[in-house]
């Protein structure tokens, strides 16, 4: 059982996402640590890629700010190495950065370096199960989880192929489209969770979660965790736009994290008792 699995073992997991280096190296570190303080169970740390095709405008903005501030894969790894948090960290990035890293072709050098700085899982939005084996192999060898995304359109054989490969948790995409905070909870979430009941791996729902109330609803519906990105990046972006002190922004992030954690827990409490996940 990996540390990531453990994070899902007792009650619902809150999995926040931030783009590393947004809007600058030091602030970004403070923000990640604030999320940990606010109750994060796992943190997804985005390594910015120039072509974030799966992201909506909010995270595109974060990625652009981070790149403009000079974020690179190597700087990212240094950042992660320096972090003072005690939750499992998952690297989220696009395949080309993984593929290009180091002098050898292929994903192994990237995974080695990630393991070295303490990354425990990887999720790659543009890497479907069909193309994943080289990365899968490297992760297995180095003891990292490889998280896959399951979309509302993923069904039947495709779903099985993904669920056979996934480890850590499965990222349940709550709606079609790209990342971005929304004012409502997608109807499709329940369907998606329903399709996954037969598998034991933890199910974390993402795409559009914005408030504690959303978190509550989603966990009530059966999710083992919630993934929240854009709603947090919005706070970073606003702080940057208004040139607020990093501590203030960090405090807001911590508060938002707490709201979401509490929402998730409250949802969990309301759940019809059912056999707990192992």
């Amino acid at each position, binding site marked *: 059982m990996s540390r990531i699995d453990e994070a899902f073992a007792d009650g619902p997991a809150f999995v926040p996402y931030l783009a590393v280096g947004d809007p600058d190296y030091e602030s970004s570190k403070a923000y990640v640590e604030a999320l940990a303080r606010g109750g994060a169970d796992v943190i997804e740390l985005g390594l910015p*890629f*120039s*072509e*974030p*095709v*799966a*992201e*909506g*405008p909010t995270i*595109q903005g974060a990625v*652009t700010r981070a*790149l403009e501030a000079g974020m*690179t*894969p*190597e700087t990212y790894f240094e950042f992660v190495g320096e972090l003072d948090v005690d939750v499992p960290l998952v690297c989220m990035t*696009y*395949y*080309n*950065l993984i*593929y*290009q*890293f180091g002098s050898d*072709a292929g994903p192994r050098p990237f995974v080695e370096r990630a393991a070295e700085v303490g990354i425990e899982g990887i999720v790659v*939005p*543009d*890497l*479907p199960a*069909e*193309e994943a084996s080289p990365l899968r192999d490297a992760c297995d060898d180095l003891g990292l989880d490889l998280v*896959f*995304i*399951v*979309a*509302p*359109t*993923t*069904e039947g054989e*495709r779903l099985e192929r*993904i669920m056979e490969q996934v480890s850590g948790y499965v990222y349940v*995409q709550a709606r*079609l*489209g*790209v990342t971005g905070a929304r004012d409502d909870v997608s109807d499709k979430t329940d369907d998606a969770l329903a399709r996954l009941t037969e598998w034991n791996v933890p199910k974390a729902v993402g795409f559009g979660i914005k408030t504690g109330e959303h978190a509550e609803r989603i966990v009530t519906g059966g999710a083992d965790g919630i993934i929240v990105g854009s709603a947090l990046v919005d706070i970073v972006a606003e702080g940057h736009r208004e040139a607020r002190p990093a501590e203030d922004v960090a405090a807001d992030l911590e508060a938002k994290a707490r709201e979401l954690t509490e929402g998730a827990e409250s949802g969990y409490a309301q759940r019809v008792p059912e056999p707990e996940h192992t």
Partner: protein
Amino acid sequence: MSTSKFGEYGGQYVPEALMPAIEELEDAYERYVLDNEDGFMDEFRRRLRDFGGRPTPLQHAEQLSERYDSEVYLKREDLVHGGAHKLNNALGQVLLAKYMGKERIVAETGAGQHGTATAMAAAHLGMPCEVYMGERDINRQRPNVFRMRLNGTEVNPVTIGRGTLKEAINETMRDWATNVEDTHYVIGSVVGPHPFPRMVRDFQSVISEEAREQIREQTGRLPDSVLACAGGGSNTMGAFHEFTQDAEVDLYAVEAGGSSLEVNEEEGVAPNSASLSTGDEGVLHGARTKLLQDTDGQIMESHSVSSGLDYAGVGPELAHLVDEDRVTPVTVDDDAALEAFHRLSQDEGIIPALETAHAFGFAHENPEKLGDVTIINVSGRGDKDLESVIEETGKRDIAAAPDMDVFTGGGL
């Protein structure tokens, strides 16, 4: 099942949300395109003829032949409806989307040629259509924007990044990922995840099917060389495909050399679009291919005076053919392309697209490479480029350019 790779290149690197649509497309491609189910290919060919204006001529170019001491033949894709080879693919894909029961079309466009081709095909087949186009390209190719609007297509400006083709593709993929259930993404070149590179090539191969037969009719032999410009590489693969088995035919993919082949790693800018000539392997927009990227793997901003070549990637099959030494990648810079644009306009009475002009620039700089008989693919006409040409010619001292006095007061 059709294989998704060309050697090491190709594949399907897309968000999971798109994978079911891509599998569906793969299935439709195999049934309708490869197996002509329900007579799809017959209908496609009929529409390409009646609506698109095929076959296009293979024209002997008298002045160029004399100039280069080689029998130069022009494959006249500029005469296809809409003014470029782009309709061959757009019509095929929109028709396929119809066969698949899709109800909406999205597309990206750079020069606006693929956008106008898709808009025309969509109007012709009664499909609603939206096109994403970088804001910078909107300004460089306004007539094409207007043409799309006239055909009833929505044009969505993309403001992020430098506002060119790469960003437009990103944004179209996002739309597709959102509306994948009823929407087909008509990609504009031999790029993207499998089956796009193979399917777009098949739709474009009509160029070399015709040309190979025409050159044999007109000269009794195969050409010594075939030249085509290469952005994503669809006119290129279209012009090359049927000749790839003819080992004696040299195939030149002419890329945009822009202002220089040097890159600026600091700024993340390559002042060219020469991914086959100078790029290296990576993953972009769904496929492994040759890319303009920095050492970290971040994609560079490319550049070319021609919007349609201004792209950091290239079709995976071309990347493979270059590695196999079957296709020779070469470059022509902005200045030489403009010079070639003016030369062809005056020598032959054909105003080429700026993209196309690159192929002619290569012929001019390397007449000895043409052999005794050459085919140059005239991928499109230059009407869309008039404004850019006035502006870019004005910045330079171009020997072949006419005096532009009539245009005091600038632009069109």
